[in-house]
């Protein structure tokens, strides 16, 4: 249940076996079925969620009922409304499961207590927040300055599993384009790839 979490910790810090056992006592194990909500707009976001298994999305719904997907969380990723988590204010986001998922949930109080008792974890959380900030800045820059095709190509390069596991209309929402535009881009991209393979170049 904690294998992937500890693998991720190991990338940045070294916990003793005792510390790992103590760490387990701070997390709430939660199984979510496909399409179940972890968070609904208007509720306070009580948990930071680590994805041991499965796939979740974080999104808003506008006045016209259109969904805007801000983030996905695959295995090994964290997800949550950071502002609501820190302040207790109602969230503007929804989080639901795109696949049956196994999560480890951390309340704010448990997070504080855990970092007090295992200070090494401060480094881990600082580093993942830094990485998250970098990724968010990049996404904003891409959104403002790159074409949809460029964004799609970059996404395919960085996260090829997106296309395999995420429905096309949700990918389109994530990229801020219509499903029809995405379909055209994917067809064009496939033709280019096939063309390159035939010519023996890539």
């Amino acid at each position, binding site marked *: *249940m904690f294998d992937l979490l500890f693998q991720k910790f190991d990338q940045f810090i070294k916990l003793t076996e005792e510390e790992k056992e103590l760490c*387990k*006592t701070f*997390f*709430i194990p*939660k199984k979510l*079925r496909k399409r179940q*909500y972890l*968070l609904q707009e208007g509720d306070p976001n009580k948990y930071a969620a680590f994805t041991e298994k499965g796939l979740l999305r974080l999104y808003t719904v506008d006045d016209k009922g259109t969904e805007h997907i801000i983030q996905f969380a695959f295995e090994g990723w964290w997800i949550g409304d950071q502002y609501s988590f820190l302040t207790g204010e109602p969230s503007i986001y929804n989080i639901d499961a795109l696949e049956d998922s196994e999560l480890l949930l951390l309340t704010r109080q*448990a997070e504080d207590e855990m970092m007090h008792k295992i200070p090494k974890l401060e480094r881990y959380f600082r580093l993942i927040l830094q990485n998250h900030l970098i990724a968010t800045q990049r996404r904003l820059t891409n959104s403002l300055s790159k074409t949809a095709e460029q964004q799609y190509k970059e996404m395919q390069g960085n996260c090829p599993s997106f296309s395999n596991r995420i429905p096309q209309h949700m990918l389109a929402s994530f990229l801020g384009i219509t499903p029809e535009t995405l379909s055209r881009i994917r067809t064009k991209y496939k033709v280019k790839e096939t063309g390159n393979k035939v010519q023996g170049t890539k």
Partner: protein
Amino acid sequence: MVKGTIAILGVTEETAAMIAKKLAAGYRLLFFSIETEKMKALEKEIKKTVPNADIESMACVSDASWEADFIIVDVPADKEQEIAEKIKMFCTRKIVILLLNKHKYTTGILEKLLPDTIFVKAIVDGRHVNIVSGDEEALQVTADIMQTAGLIPGLEITY
């Protein structure tokens, strides 16, 4: 608002069944009992009177606890150890409510084997329930659940 999920372990016991019938309107319920046929009959009965009820009779007590946000336990005292061993990994930091009454006692082993849970005793006497816990938030959450179940809660904090 996200509908909370409550696992009711030993749902075919009298008190648990009574509470389950009232909670069906407000919560997603996961039933578990070794009396499988009786459990499924209870599910069917509740779904007739509460058409939108989100209830599932589970084959695995561990899975029920894993999916649940709150866990209600109503099992004979001699089954507490068995239940505790099966759900231990899946109820860390969750509220576990042990239903008791004047005829039903606890060996204390459930609380002992689940040290990382937020443990609450709910002692039911007719329409009243005395809720005992060392955690103030758990007392309030349990009181809300019991009120939804049509019971009148009295709270007792232990230090």
